[in-house]
Protein backbone atom coordinates (compact mmCIF):
# COMPACT_ATOMS: atom_id res chain seq x y z
CA UNK A 1 0.00 0.00 0.00
CA UNK A 2 2.64 2.40 1.08
CA UNK A 3 5.00 1.37 -1.65
CA UNK A 4 2.38 1.97 -4.32
CA UNK A 5 1.83 5.49 -3.12
CA UNK A 6 5.57 6.05 -2.93
CA UNK A 7 6.01 4.87 -6.46
CA UNK A 8 3.20 7.07 -7.58
CA UNK A 9 4.73 10.06 -5.87
CA UNK A 10 8.05 9.27 -7.45
CA UNK A 11 6.50 9.05 -10.92
CA UNK A 12 4.71 12.30 -10.27
CA UNK A 13 7.93 13.94 -9.22
CA UNK A 14 9.80 12.73 -12.28
CA UNK A 15 7.13 13.93 -14.65
CA UNK A 16 6.85 17.27 -12.94
CA UNK A 17 10.59 17.63 -13.21
CA UNK A 18 10.49 16.77 -16.90
CA UNK A 19 7.76 19.28 -17.47
CA UNK A 20 9.65 21.91 -15.56
CA UNK A 21 12.72 21.25 -17.69
CA UNK A 22 10.66 21.67 -20.82
CA UNK A 23 9.22 24.94 -19.62
CA UNK A 24 12.66 26.17 -18.66
CA UNK A 25 13.88 25.08 -22.06
CA UNK A 26 11.19 27.09 -23.78
CA UNK A 27 11.81 30.19 -21.72
CA UNK A 28 15.59 30.07 -21.67
CA UNK A 29 16.18 28.31 -24.96
CA UNK A 30 14.92 31.09 -27.18
CA UNK A 31 17.90 31.90 -29.36
CA UNK A 32 19.54 35.06 -28.16
CA UNK A 33 19.27 37.32 -31.18
CA UNK A 34 22.56 38.46 -32.62
CA UNK A 35 23.63 42.01 -31.92
CA UNK A 36 21.35 44.32 -33.85
CA UNK A 37 21.59 48.04 -34.37
CA UNK A 38 18.89 50.18 -32.79
CA UNK A 39 16.39 51.01 -35.50
CA UNK A 40 14.11 54.03 -35.71
CA UNK A 41 10.37 53.54 -35.26
CA UNK A 42 8.38 52.84 -38.40
CA UNK A 43 6.19 55.91 -37.99
CA UNK A 44 5.08 56.18 -41.60
CA UNK A 45 6.13 55.66 -45.18
CA UNK A 46 8.70 58.41 -44.77
CA UNK A 47 10.80 58.15 -41.62
CA UNK A 48 12.90 61.27 -41.49
CA UNK A 49 15.06 60.72 -38.45
CA UNK A 50 17.88 62.88 -39.81
CA UNK A 51 15.42 65.75 -40.52
CA UNK A 52 16.39 66.24 -44.14
CA UNK A 53 12.91 66.81 -45.51
CA UNK A 54 10.43 69.63 -45.07
CA UNK A 55 6.86 68.76 -44.14
CA UNK A 56 5.36 69.48 -47.60
CA UNK A 57 7.99 67.30 -49.29
CA UNK A 58 7.46 64.53 -46.78
CA UNK A 59 3.71 64.66 -47.32
CA UNK A 60 4.13 64.69 -51.06
CA UNK A 61 6.37 61.62 -51.04
CA UNK A 62 4.07 59.88 -48.57
CA UNK A 63 1.20 60.50 -50.98
CA UNK A 64 3.12 58.87 -53.83
CA UNK A 65 4.11 55.90 -51.75
CA UNK A 66 0.58 55.36 -50.49
CA UNK A 67 -0.84 55.52 -54.00
CA UNK A 68 1.91 53.20 -55.18
CA UNK A 69 0.98 50.63 -52.58
CA UNK A 70 -2.71 50.90 -53.42
CA UNK A 71 -1.94 50.34 -57.09
CA UNK A 72 0.56 47.51 -56.75
CA UNK A 73 0.44 46.21 -53.12
CA UNK A 74 4.18 46.86 -53.05
CA UNK A 75 5.78 48.96 -50.35
CA UNK A 76 8.48 51.55 -50.72
CA UNK A 77 9.69 53.30 -47.59
CA UNK A 78 12.01 56.29 -47.45
CA UNK A 79 14.25 56.44 -44.39
CA UNK A 80 16.86 58.92 -43.28
CA UNK A 81 18.94 58.01 -40.24
CA UNK A 82 21.20 60.10 -38.05
CA UNK A 83 23.61 57.29 -37.40
CA UNK A 84 24.39 53.86 -38.83
CA UNK A 85 25.86 52.89 -35.45
CA UNK A 86 29.06 51.66 -36.99
CA UNK A 87 27.38 49.19 -39.35
CA UNK A 88 28.06 49.25 -43.08
CA UNK A 89 24.99 50.64 -44.82
CA UNK A 90 24.45 47.31 -46.61
CA UNK A 91 24.29 45.56 -43.26
CA UNK A 92 22.04 48.17 -41.67
CA UNK A 93 19.71 48.24 -44.66
CA UNK A 94 18.72 44.61 -44.93
CA UNK A 95 18.35 44.24 -41.17
CA UNK A 96 16.11 47.29 -41.07
CA UNK A 97 14.03 45.85 -43.89
CA UNK A 98 13.62 42.55 -42.09
CA UNK A 99 12.81 44.13 -38.74
CA UNK A 100 10.18 46.39 -40.29
CA UNK A 101 8.99 43.68 -42.64
CA UNK A 102 8.54 45.99 -45.60
CA UNK A 103 6.72 44.46 -48.56
CA UNK A 104 4.07 41.81 -48.94
CA UNK A 105 4.62 38.72 -46.90
CA UNK A 106 5.71 35.69 -48.97
CA UNK A 107 6.17 37.88 -52.04
CA UNK A 108 8.76 40.11 -50.36
CA UNK A 109 7.92 43.10 -52.51
CA UNK A 110 9.45 45.85 -50.44
CA UNK A 111 12.03 48.52 -51.18
CA UNK A 112 13.79 50.89 -48.80
CA UNK A 113 15.54 54.08 -49.80
CA UNK A 114 17.96 54.62 -46.96
CA UNK A 115 19.91 57.85 -46.53
CA UNK A 116 22.61 58.31 -43.90
CA UNK A 117 23.80 61.92 -44.33
CA UNK A 118 26.36 61.77 -41.54
CA UNK A 119 28.08 58.75 -43.07
CA UNK A 120 27.48 60.24 -46.53
CA UNK A 121 25.99 56.98 -47.69
CA UNK A 122 22.80 56.10 -49.52
CA UNK A 123 21.34 52.70 -50.32
CA UNK A 124 18.44 51.25 -52.23
CA UNK A 125 17.57 48.03 -50.42
CA UNK A 126 15.48 45.70 -52.56
CA UNK A 127 13.33 42.88 -51.21
CA UNK A 128 13.76 39.36 -52.58
CA UNK A 129 10.66 39.61 -54.73
CA UNK A 130 11.71 42.75 -56.61
CA UNK A 131 15.34 41.89 -57.27
CA UNK A 132 14.45 40.92 -60.82
CA UNK A 133 12.83 44.26 -61.63
CA UNK A 134 14.88 46.68 -59.59
CA UNK A 135 18.21 44.99 -60.24
CA UNK A 136 21.50 45.91 -58.63
CA UNK A 137 22.64 47.61 -61.81
CA UNK A 138 19.46 49.68 -62.11
CA UNK A 139 19.64 50.60 -58.42
CA UNK A 140 23.21 51.71 -58.90
CA UNK A 141 22.24 53.78 -61.93
CA UNK A 142 19.44 55.50 -59.98
CA UNK A 143 21.83 56.33 -57.18
CA UNK A 144 24.52 57.66 -59.51
CA UNK A 145 22.22 59.61 -61.82
CA UNK A 146 19.19 60.67 -59.82
CA UNK A 147 20.34 60.88 -56.23
CA UNK A 148 24.02 61.63 -55.85
CA UNK A 149 24.23 64.76 -58.05
CA UNK A 150 21.73 66.56 -55.80
CA UNK A 151 23.28 65.14 -52.62
CA UNK A 152 26.71 66.40 -53.66
CA UNK A 153 25.25 69.89 -53.80
CA UNK A 154 23.76 69.43 -50.37
CA UNK A 155 20.23 69.32 -51.74
CA UNK A 156 18.93 66.26 -49.92
CA UNK A 157 15.27 66.95 -50.62
CA UNK A 158 15.77 66.99 -54.37
CA UNK A 159 17.89 63.85 -54.25
CA UNK A 160 15.29 61.97 -52.25
CA UNK A 161 12.47 63.16 -54.51
CA UNK A 162 14.37 62.21 -57.67
CA UNK A 163 15.41 58.86 -56.28
CA UNK A 164 11.93 57.97 -55.08
CA UNK A 165 10.37 58.96 -58.40
CA UNK A 166 12.96 56.92 -60.32
CA UNK A 167 12.40 53.83 -58.18
CA UNK A 168 8.63 54.13 -58.60
CA UNK A 169 9.03 54.49 -62.33
CA UNK A 170 11.17 51.36 -62.58
CA UNK A 171 8.55 49.49 -60.58
CA UNK A 172 5.90 50.48 -63.09
CA UNK A 173 4.24 53.41 -61.35
CA UNK A 174 4.65 56.97 -62.51
CA UNK A 175 4.90 59.05 -59.37
CA UNK A 176 4.52 62.29 -61.26
CA UNK A 177 1.01 61.59 -62.49
CA UNK A 178 -1.07 64.05 -60.45
CA UNK A 179 -4.27 62.03 -60.81
CA UNK A 180 -2.64 59.03 -59.27
CA UNK A 181 -1.00 60.93 -56.46
CA UNK A 182 -4.14 62.32 -54.92
CA UNK A 183 -6.62 59.62 -53.94
CA UNK A 184 -10.16 60.80 -54.63
CA UNK A 185 -11.61 61.59 -51.20
CA UNK A 186 -15.16 61.81 -52.62
CA UNK A 187 -15.24 58.06 -53.09
CA UNK A 188 -15.66 57.77 -49.36
CA UNK A 189 -19.05 59.46 -49.54
CA UNK A 190 -20.32 56.83 -51.94
CA UNK A 191 -19.84 54.09 -49.40
CA UNK A 192 -22.97 52.21 -48.49
CA UNK A 193 -23.63 51.73 -44.76
CA UNK A 194 -22.72 48.07 -45.07
CA UNK A 195 -19.30 48.65 -46.60
CA UNK A 196 -18.73 51.40 -44.06
CA UNK A 197 -19.41 48.87 -41.32
CA UNK A 198 -16.97 46.42 -42.94
CA UNK A 199 -14.37 49.15 -43.16
CA UNK A 200 -14.84 49.95 -39.50
CA UNK A 201 -14.40 46.29 -38.60
CA UNK A 202 -11.29 46.11 -40.79
CA UNK A 203 -10.01 49.23 -39.11
CA UNK A 204 -10.41 47.65 -35.70
CA UNK A 205 -8.58 44.56 -36.95
CA UNK A 206 -5.76 46.70 -38.28
CA UNK A 207 -5.46 48.45 -34.96
CA UNK A 208 -5.22 45.13 -33.22
CA UNK A 209 -2.89 43.93 -35.92
CA UNK A 210 -0.37 46.51 -34.88
CA UNK A 211 -0.43 45.09 -31.41
CA UNK A 212 0.59 41.73 -32.72
CA UNK A 213 -2.54 39.69 -33.25
CA UNK A 214 -2.09 39.68 -37.00
CA UNK A 215 1.49 40.90 -36.71
CA UNK A 216 1.23 43.48 -39.41
CA UNK A 217 0.29 41.07 -42.17
CA UNK A 218 -2.26 43.48 -43.52
CA UNK A 219 0.35 46.08 -44.30
CA UNK A 220 -0.67 49.68 -44.48
CA UNK A 221 -3.57 48.58 -46.62
CA UNK A 222 -6.26 51.11 -47.33
CA UNK A 223 -5.93 52.88 -44.05
CA UNK A 224 -2.21 53.34 -44.01
CA UNK A 225 -2.67 55.54 -47.03
CA UNK A 226 -4.92 57.97 -45.22
CA UNK A 227 -3.57 58.04 -41.71
CA UNK A 228 0.15 58.16 -41.40
CA UNK A 229 -0.01 56.41 -38.03
CA UNK A 230 -1.66 53.32 -39.47
CA UNK A 231 1.21 52.23 -41.68
CA UNK A 232 3.09 49.05 -41.01
CA UNK A 233 5.20 46.59 -42.93
CA UNK A 234 3.56 43.66 -44.65
CA UNK A 235 6.07 41.08 -43.47
CA UNK A 236 8.41 41.02 -46.47
CA UNK A 237 12.03 39.97 -46.24
CA UNK A 238 15.33 41.14 -47.68
CA UNK A 239 18.44 39.35 -48.82
CA UNK A 240 20.87 42.07 -49.82
CA UNK A 241 19.57 43.14 -53.23
CA UNK A 242 20.08 46.70 -54.39
CA UNK A 243 23.04 49.04 -54.47
CA UNK A 244 24.79 51.65 -52.37
CA UNK A 245 26.49 54.92 -53.13
CA UNK A 246 28.69 57.40 -51.32
CA UNK A 247 29.33 61.07 -51.87
Amino acid sequence: MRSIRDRRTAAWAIRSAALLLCVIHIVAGLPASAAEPKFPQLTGRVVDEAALLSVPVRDRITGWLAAFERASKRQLVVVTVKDLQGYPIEDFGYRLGRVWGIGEKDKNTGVILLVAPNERAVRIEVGYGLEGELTDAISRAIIERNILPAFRQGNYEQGVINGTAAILKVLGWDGETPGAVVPAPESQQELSPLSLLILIILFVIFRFGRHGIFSGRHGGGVWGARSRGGFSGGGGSFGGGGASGRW
Partner: protein
Amino acid sequence: MIRTFFSRSSRIFLILFFAMGVAACDINAVPRNDEEVKAAWSEVLNQYQRRADLVPNLVETVAGYARQEKETLTAVIEARSRATQVQLPPDILTNPESFRQFQQSQAALGGALARLMVVVEKYPELKSNQNFLSLQSQLEGTENRITIARRDYILSVQKYNTELRTIPGRWVAGVLYPEAEVKQTFDISGEAKEAPKVKF
Protein backbone atom coordinates in the same frame (compact mmCIF):
# COMPACT_ATOMS: atom_id res chain seq x y z
CA MET B 1 -14.60 4.90 -2.72
CA ILE B 2 -12.61 7.92 -1.85
CA ARG B 3 -9.39 6.08 -2.68
CA THR B 4 -10.54 5.04 -6.16
CA PHE B 5 -11.63 8.58 -6.86
CA PHE B 6 -8.28 9.87 -5.76
CA SER B 7 -6.30 7.37 -7.81
CA ARG B 8 -8.38 8.00 -10.94
CA SER B 9 -8.09 11.74 -10.74
CA SER B 10 -4.42 11.53 -10.02
CA ARG B 11 -3.98 9.24 -13.03
CA ILE B 12 -5.77 11.78 -15.21
CA PHE B 13 -3.53 14.46 -13.80
CA LEU B 14 -0.47 12.40 -14.56
CA ILE B 15 -1.54 11.85 -18.15
CA LEU B 16 -2.37 15.52 -18.51
CA PHE B 17 0.96 16.51 -17.08
CA PHE B 18 2.80 14.12 -19.30
CA ALA B 19 0.94 15.36 -22.38
CA MET B 20 1.72 18.94 -21.47
CA GLY B 21 5.33 18.03 -20.94
CA VAL B 22 5.59 16.40 -24.35
CA ALA B 23 3.84 19.32 -25.97
CA ALA B 24 6.18 21.75 -24.30
CA CYS B 25 9.17 19.72 -25.47
CA ASP B 26 8.22 20.34 -29.09
CA ILE B 27 9.10 17.02 -30.64
CA ASN B 28 9.15 18.57 -34.10
CA ALA B 29 11.88 21.07 -33.34
CA VAL B 30 14.68 18.94 -34.80
CA PRO B 31 13.17 18.31 -38.24
CA ARG B 32 11.82 21.85 -38.43
CA ASN B 33 15.22 23.35 -37.68
CA ASP B 34 16.74 20.88 -40.10
CA GLU B 35 14.53 22.19 -42.88
CA GLU B 36 15.50 25.75 -42.01
CA VAL B 37 19.15 24.83 -42.27
CA LYS B 38 18.57 23.19 -45.65
CA ALA B 39 16.75 26.24 -46.96
CA ALA B 40 19.50 28.54 -45.73
CA TRP B 41 22.13 26.29 -47.28
CA SER B 42 20.32 26.33 -50.64
CA GLU B 43 20.41 30.10 -50.54
CA VAL B 44 24.16 30.03 -49.88
CA LEU B 45 24.71 27.72 -52.86
CA ASN B 46 22.40 29.82 -54.96
CA GLN B 47 24.35 33.00 -54.29
CA TYR B 48 27.73 31.34 -54.84
CA GLN B 49 26.42 30.02 -58.13
CA ARG B 50 25.27 33.49 -59.05
CA ARG B 51 28.75 34.81 -58.45
CA ALA B 52 30.32 32.04 -60.51
CA ASP B 53 27.92 32.84 -63.35
CA LEU B 54 29.03 36.48 -63.38
CA VAL B 55 32.71 35.64 -63.78
CA PRO B 56 32.97 34.79 -67.52
CA ASN B 57 31.27 38.03 -68.53
CA LEU B 58 33.33 40.05 -66.11
CA VAL B 59 36.61 38.52 -67.23
CA GLU B 60 35.74 39.11 -70.87
CA THR B 61 34.89 42.76 -70.26
CA VAL B 62 38.02 43.42 -68.24
CA ALA B 63 40.21 41.59 -70.75
CA GLY B 64 38.96 43.97 -73.45
CA TYR B 65 40.64 46.89 -71.68
CA ALA B 66 43.34 45.36 -69.54
CA ARG B 67 44.80 42.49 -71.48
CA GLN B 68 48.17 42.89 -69.75
CA GLU B 69 46.60 41.84 -66.45
CA LYS B 70 46.66 38.31 -67.74
CA GLU B 71 47.93 36.83 -64.51
CA THR B 72 45.09 38.21 -62.41
CA LEU B 73 42.51 37.25 -65.01
CA THR B 74 43.84 33.70 -65.26
CA ALA B 75 43.79 33.40 -61.48
CA VAL B 76 40.09 34.34 -61.48
CA ILE B 77 39.23 31.85 -64.21
CA GLU B 78 41.13 29.07 -62.47
CA ALA B 79 39.61 29.83 -59.09
CA ARG B 80 36.17 29.79 -60.68
CA SER B 81 36.67 26.44 -62.33
CA ARG B 82 38.00 24.98 -59.10
CA ALA B 83 35.05 26.34 -57.15
CA THR B 84 32.48 25.05 -59.60
CA GLN B 85 34.19 21.70 -60.04
CA VAL B 86 34.05 20.82 -56.35
CA GLN B 87 31.68 17.89 -56.16
CA LEU B 88 29.37 18.46 -53.23
CA PRO B 89 28.93 15.18 -51.39
CA PRO B 90 25.45 14.61 -49.96
CA ASP B 91 26.81 14.72 -46.43
CA ILE B 92 28.62 18.02 -46.91
CA LEU B 93 26.79 19.72 -44.04
CA THR B 94 27.90 17.13 -41.52
CA ASN B 95 31.32 16.32 -42.94
CA PRO B 96 33.93 18.80 -41.67
CA GLU B 97 36.49 17.94 -44.34
CA SER B 98 34.31 18.45 -47.41
CA PHE B 99 32.69 21.48 -45.85
CA ARG B 100 36.10 23.02 -45.33
CA GLN B 101 37.08 22.27 -48.93
CA PHE B 102 33.95 23.92 -50.20
CA GLN B 103 34.55 26.96 -48.04
CA GLN B 104 38.16 27.24 -49.20
CA SER B 105 37.41 26.96 -52.89
CA GLN B 106 34.75 29.68 -52.61
CA ALA B 107 37.07 31.87 -50.56
CA ALA B 108 39.76 31.46 -53.21
CA LEU B 109 37.38 32.69 -55.89
CA GLY B 110 36.33 35.59 -53.65
CA GLY B 111 39.98 36.51 -53.13
CA ALA B 112 40.83 36.32 -56.84
CA LEU B 113 37.85 38.51 -57.70
CA ALA B 114 38.78 41.03 -55.04
CA ARG B 115 42.30 41.24 -56.50
CA LEU B 116 40.83 41.76 -59.95
CA MET B 117 38.67 44.61 -58.71
CA VAL B 118 41.76 46.23 -57.20
CA VAL B 119 43.70 45.88 -60.44
CA VAL B 120 40.98 47.50 -62.56
CA GLU B 121 41.39 50.72 -60.59
CA LYS B 122 44.31 51.44 -62.92
CA TYR B 123 42.09 51.56 -66.01
CA PRO B 124 39.89 54.68 -66.07
CA GLU B 125 38.50 53.77 -69.49
CA LEU B 126 37.33 50.41 -68.20
CA LYS B 127 35.87 52.02 -65.14
CA SER B 128 33.68 54.26 -67.26
CA ASN B 129 32.50 51.38 -69.46
CA GLN B 130 28.78 50.95 -68.98
CA ASN B 131 28.90 47.19 -69.22
CA PHE B 132 31.66 47.01 -66.66
CA LEU B 133 29.82 49.30 -64.25
CA SER B 134 26.78 47.10 -64.50
CA LEU B 135 28.82 43.95 -63.87
CA GLN B 136 30.62 45.62 -61.00
CA SER B 137 27.38 46.53 -59.26
CA GLN B 138 26.08 43.00 -59.80
CA LEU B 139 29.24 41.56 -58.32
CA GLU B 140 29.02 43.86 -55.31
CA GLY B 141 25.38 42.95 -54.86
CA THR B 142 26.18 39.26 -55.09
CA GLU B 143 28.98 39.48 -52.57
CA ASN B 144 26.57 41.28 -50.28
CA ARG B 145 23.96 38.56 -50.76
CA ILE B 146 26.56 35.90 -50.07
CA THR B 147 27.43 37.59 -46.79
CA ILE B 148 23.78 37.65 -45.77
CA ALA B 149 23.07 34.10 -46.94
CA ARG B 150 26.05 32.85 -44.97
CA ARG B 151 24.96 34.74 -41.88
CA ASP B 152 21.45 33.31 -42.15
CA TYR B 153 22.94 29.85 -42.58
CA ILE B 154 25.17 30.29 -39.53
CA LEU B 155 22.18 31.39 -37.44
CA SER B 156 20.04 28.46 -38.59
CA VAL B 157 22.83 25.97 -37.86
CA GLN B 158 23.35 27.52 -34.46
CA LYS B 159 19.68 27.00 -33.70
CA TYR B 160 19.71 23.44 -35.00
CA ASN B 161 22.88 22.42 -33.18
CA THR B 162 21.68 24.01 -29.96
CA GLU B 163 18.45 22.05 -30.17
CA LEU B 164 20.40 18.87 -30.80
CA ARG B 165 22.86 19.34 -27.99
CA THR B 166 20.73 20.70 -25.19
CA ILE B 167 18.20 18.96 -23.01
CA PRO B 168 15.41 18.13 -23.74
CA GLY B 169 16.05 18.41 -27.48
CA ARG B 170 18.88 16.00 -27.02
CA TRP B 171 16.61 13.37 -25.47
CA VAL B 172 13.94 13.91 -28.10
CA ALA B 173 16.51 13.54 -30.88
CA GLY B 174 18.03 10.49 -29.18
CA VAL B 175 14.71 8.69 -29.24
CA LEU B 176 13.00 10.02 -32.36
CA TYR B 177 15.77 11.30 -34.64
CA PRO B 178 18.84 9.15 -33.98
CA GLU B 179 20.24 10.02 -37.43
CA ALA B 180 20.39 13.77 -36.68
CA GLU B 181 23.95 15.06 -36.58
CA VAL B 182 25.52 18.35 -35.60
CA LYS B 183 26.06 20.46 -38.73
CA GLN B 184 29.10 22.34 -39.97
CA THR B 185 29.17 26.09 -40.16
CA PHE B 186 31.36 28.77 -41.69
CA ASP B 187 34.38 30.02 -39.85
CA ILE B 188 37.10 32.43 -40.85
CA SER B 189 40.04 30.11 -40.21
CA GLY B 190 39.67 28.50 -43.64
CA GLU B 191 39.40 31.85 -45.36
CA ALA B 192 41.69 34.30 -43.62
CA LYS B 193 44.67 33.13 -45.66
CA GLU B 194 42.88 34.02 -48.85
CA ALA B 195 42.40 37.71 -48.08
CA PRO B 196 43.54 39.82 -51.03
CA LYS B 197 46.86 41.56 -50.76
CA VAL B 198 47.22 45.01 -52.20
CA LYS B 199 50.58 45.76 -53.77
CA PHE B 200 51.70 49.31 -54.50
